[in-house]
């Protein structure tokens, strides 16, 4: 496509050529495809998502099945061998299968927590910026307060009393997660509101709700995409931290965090139970970070270096 355009430029006068102006999204896609780091990140994320979503097909065993031959005679986990590609855990279960199924929960929590946080942030931050007034003050002061709270501590307290599980982790992360993006979306809406096309829409009599949904909201899409990609790894790390403290996803359901917890009791004799899930987290977070950086550069040309 790019080459074709150049060819046209060279051979034909611009006025008669079939030269389309490139749209914002086409530009962004082109920038993205040229960024090797971003592509690597994208491939990693795609790989992790496909493998974990396809857990029933990719996992060699049932993640909850305890094997007689999965423990040594003294009841210790066994290291990687032909039957168990990554060894077994403290109860003689196949570690690889548990990692694949555990990844499913971790990704699910990361994605859901961000859908909720960003949804709330769009609603509150966006309308705070658009309507202003006392509502704006209320929302922004609440954001200030939430950002001044040591969130991990309160997440621990909340997770202690709520019934353990993915839903609780999503809830707990979202309670604190909406604050920062609200601030970002608000400031964006503030500047979008001033732009001529909003005035134009109003001048032909568009209703407030129509302006907000059809003219302002689409402008926020790039920020939403970038923010979502960048925040998923943070949620995955928080889930791992909570599960590691025994408060997130509770056994026997595997999650990367609680597998590390189960291995931490015997990290000297069976280090693979600790090391492997950590590597999974690292790879996933790395993938999302690379992808997020690339998307930011591609979607926001002003910030490009």
């Amino acid at each position, binding site marked *: 496509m790019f080459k074709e355009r150049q060819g046209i430029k060279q051979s034909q006068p611009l006025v008669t050529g079939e030269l389309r102006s490139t749209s914002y999204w086409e530009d962004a896609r082109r920038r993205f495809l040229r960024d090797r780091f971003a592509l690597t990140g994208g491939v990693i994320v795609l790989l992790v998502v496909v493998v974990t979503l396809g857990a029933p097909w990719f996992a060699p065993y049932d993640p909850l099945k305890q094997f007689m031959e999965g423990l040594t005679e003294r009841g210790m986990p066994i290291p990687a061998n032909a039957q168990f590609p990554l060894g077994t855990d403290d109860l003689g279960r196949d570690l690889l299968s548990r990692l694949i199924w555990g990844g499913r929960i971790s990704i699910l929590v990361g994605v859901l927590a961000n859908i909720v946080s960003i949804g709330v942030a769009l609603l509150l931050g966006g309308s705070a910026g658009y309507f202003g007034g006392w509502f704006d003050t209320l929302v922004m002061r609440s954001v200030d307060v939430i950002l*001044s709270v040591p969130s991990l501590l309160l997440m621990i307290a909340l997770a*202690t009393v709520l019934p353990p599980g993915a839903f609780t982790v999503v809830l707990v992360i979202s309670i604190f997660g909406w604050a920062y993006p609200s601030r970002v979306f608000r400031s964006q809406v503030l500047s979008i509101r001033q732009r001529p096309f909003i005035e134009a829409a109003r001048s032909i009599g568009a209703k407030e709700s129509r302006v907000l949904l059809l003219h302002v909201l689409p402008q926020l899409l790039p920020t939403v995409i970038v923010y979502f990609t960048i925040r998923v790894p943070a949620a995955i790390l928080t889930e791992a931290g909570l599960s590691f403290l025994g408060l997130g996803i509770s056994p026997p359901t595997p999650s990367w965090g609680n597998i*590390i917890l189960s291995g931490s009791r015997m990290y000297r004799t069976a280090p693979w139970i600790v090391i492997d899930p950590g590597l999974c987290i690292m790879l996933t977070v790395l993938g999302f970070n690379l992808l997020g950086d690339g998307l930011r550069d591609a979607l926001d040309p002003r910030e490009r270096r």
Partner: protein
Amino acid sequence: MTRYIARRILWVFVVMFAVMTFTFVLMYIIPADPARQVAGPLASPEALANIRASLGLDQPIYVQYATYVGNLLRGDLGRSWMYRRPVLTEIADRLPPSILLGLAAGLVELILGVIIGTASALYRYTWIDRVTMTLALIALALPNFWFGLVLLYFLGYVIPIFPLGGYGGLAHLILPAFAVGIPYSAWYARILRSSLREVMAEDYVRTARAKGLREFFVVGRHVMRNALMPVVTMWGMDLGNFIGGLALVEVIFGWPGVGLEAVEAARNLDVPMVMGCVLLISGLMATSNLIVDIAYAVLDPRVVYH
């Protein structure tokens, strides 16, 4: 300037008060019975009622809130339900190890971050830049509690250089400090790199070079001062995260600091203790943000506050 600082200090108190109320309400609406947590699962209904009365839990929430605020204004944070000691003494006892670890980790973060960030900016597009930035990307993706365990395994057990956790001299301090410091240093290295590169494109840097100043002084005197601004800002904003990371690493290493204590208190629903820790940490965060804003004005004469 003085008026600005006065207003900001006032604002810190307002935020702290709101944080306190928010936490109080959150702890109150939590669907659990703290008295049960204190008494244990086998306590009789009478014993539970007694405990509830002695902790003031039988009062309506506004009375409890008023009592708490009244005590707080007199500098009394209440007594820990778990340790049965005043919250303030309990925190004061656990504070020195946390400060020690926090400073050590901060030092690791700063030294590594500045060295790596500067090296990659000065030698950009060379192998040094590529290697350091790849390492930084990997370090950023490390869950720090896991990194702590891995350090313990390899440098405490496989090659037994360092003790396997616990509190003591310098040897005990090194691994936890690196476990917290390394992931954060990567973050700072990246920020410093991009800010250095931005500043080095400025006209006054070209002027400094043009007048024949040696590169060392150009970077040291002219570039660094301006490039450090975003780093300082990040430090202020990041402190909350940093403390969270510190808490998890304290748990891994059995480091007897406030972080470990706060995690325990939160898990046992020791409300006064949790409130105390929240107030301490958010106070620290608010103060550091204030200091950063003031430092801004000192570092950069262009910044004027009204």
